[in-house]
């Protein structure tokens, strides 16, 4: 199996706190990989390392065969890594469609002179962008909300819009930070189907952080467990559920659902 992403002995410390300690992991092409762990385990920090928000203190991040440590966040997007945020970060005064449009590489790479004085060619280019973005929005089920302001959407729909916005950047790897947080069980089922669709039909690799164990066990092909910044286990759902270290760190404190 081809490795799309490799994290090689990556550490980061903030002052005296080792938030991520010597973590190595990899993601295979076409796989849905889940990252779990108790609060403060370093999951989101790892996402921030992958997307370039933080620079690792040591270690290497390799994406599509290339070391990407020195790339800035916006350059990593161009390389094909897109993400969503745990605490939703949409552009509140922009509409649903605009939130997705501006993520499209053909829209946010416009330059001043053609944008101001362009005519037919520009119009044609924009028409394609708008069509593609409308299509992405219909995949996540927001095709009826194009004109709404992003901030007026219900919480669950805002999460879907973040996924649509990430997809508009045309990524090959999609990082989802707690995509199901705050969703009810119906919405979660729809989300499961959406993630399957993104993985199987759109052929994107998906790496997700999630607290809802049922959801994680259901959707992911492989699970990596972090605790106190260290990787403590790796495997499929059954292996993780029976791993004594995981039970001690995570599940031993109660049942599967106590995080929700």
């Amino acid at each position, binding site marked *: 199996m081809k490795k799309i992403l490799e994290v090689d002995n990556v550490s980061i410390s903030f002052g005296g706190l080792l938030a991520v300690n010597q973590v190595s992991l990899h993601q295979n092409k076409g796989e849905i990989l889940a990252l779990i762990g108790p609060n403060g385990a370093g999951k989101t920090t790892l996402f921030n390392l992958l997307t370039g928000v933080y620079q690792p203190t040591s270690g290497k991040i390799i994406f599509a065969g290339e070391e990407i440590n020195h790339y800035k966040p916006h350059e990593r997007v161009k390389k094909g890594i897109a993400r969503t945020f745990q605490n939703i970060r949409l*552009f509140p005064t922009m509409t649903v469609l605009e939130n997705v449009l501006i993520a499209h590489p053909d*829209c946010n790479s416009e330059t001043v002179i053609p944008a101001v004085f362009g005519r037919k060619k520009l119009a044609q280019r924009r028409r394609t962008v708008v069509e593609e973005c409308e299509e992405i929005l219909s995949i996540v089920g927001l095709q009826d909300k194009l004109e709404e302001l992003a901030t007026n959407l219900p919480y669950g729909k805002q999460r879907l819009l973040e996924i649509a916005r990430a997809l508009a950047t045309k990524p090959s790897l999609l990082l989802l930070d707690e995509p199901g947080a705050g969703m009810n069980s119906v919405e979660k089922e729809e989300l499961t189907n959406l993630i399957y669709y993104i993985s199987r039909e759109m052929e994107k690799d998906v790496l997700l952080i999630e607290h809802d164990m049922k959801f994680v066990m259901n959707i992911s092909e492989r699970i990596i467990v972090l605790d106190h910044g260290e990787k403590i286990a790796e495997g499929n759902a059954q292996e993780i559920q029976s791993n004594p270290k995981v039970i001690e760190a995570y599940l031993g404190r109660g049942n599967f659902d106590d995080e929700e």
Partner: protein
Amino acid sequence: MIQLKLSKNILKLIGAVVLLLLPLLVTNSYFIHIFISIGLYIILSLSLNLVTGFTGQLALGHAAFYGIGAYTSALLLLRFNVSYWLALVLSAVITGIFGFLLGLPALRLKGDYLGIVTLGFGEIVRLVFVNWYSLTRGPLGLPGIPAPKIGPYIFDSRIPFYYLIFGLAAFTVFFMHRLVNSGVGMAMITVKEDEIAAESIGIYPIKYKLLAFSLGAAFAGIAGSFYASYISFISPDTFLYMDSVTILAMVVLGGLGSIPGSIIGATVLVIVPELLRFMTNYRMLLYGALMVFMMIYRPQGFWGANKRVRNSYKIGIRGVSNEKDIRG
């Protein structure tokens, strides 16, 4: 909806015709001067709105760019005898470069801190005008700046200046309108709203901050160049901190991040002090009270960004139906 659009266009057409015929309708030279000032301040407030309203960078030194444009144009005309039109373009370019240079240190700062740096920049520029005697004649200023010429025709009254500022302001409105409704403008708005989210979709905030500073400065430079030739005399007194604040007040009062807002803000803040002239010493008091009142009861401004045409990216594209997209 189509009818609504049609009537909107007719209104625009009537407005344009009235504005074009204005010098024939109003013969009082004082009124023409007021109209010219409005045009000038529309350019200045729109240029600052790009930086502060759309890109979200607080700038308190905009009068410095206005001044740099005016001095550049005046010096080119007086020392090098270039044509006015070349001076106009060059002052836009040179002021744009100064905007870029101010943008560089400003990138590390946000909000109030950026405000202080731009304020300092404005003061430094004014002090350079005052103290670089050999170039600017200091507080004595530069008199006798020649009027623009088209072939043998010299701009010898306020009417040709009115048409010139009308053209420049119309160009500024067109440019800003197209820009903010493009991918470039939307990227600027994302930088204002959330830089981390902007980076997560492939936008480099630094690029758009520099672009906003450069373009904003360039348009202020155009306004300065016009002013120099219109008044034919410039001195450091015209480009004070007070003027930066007035321009910022126009942007905020009109509505941050709104083009009609800046136009309304500039118009109101040019006219109101003139209307209050009969009150002599009390007029600035009332002017201040009006602003306080406005910020309490209408903090979003006369025409806030919330009236922005929704999904404006499509507008202006032929062949794409945008009837359903036009709201408010």
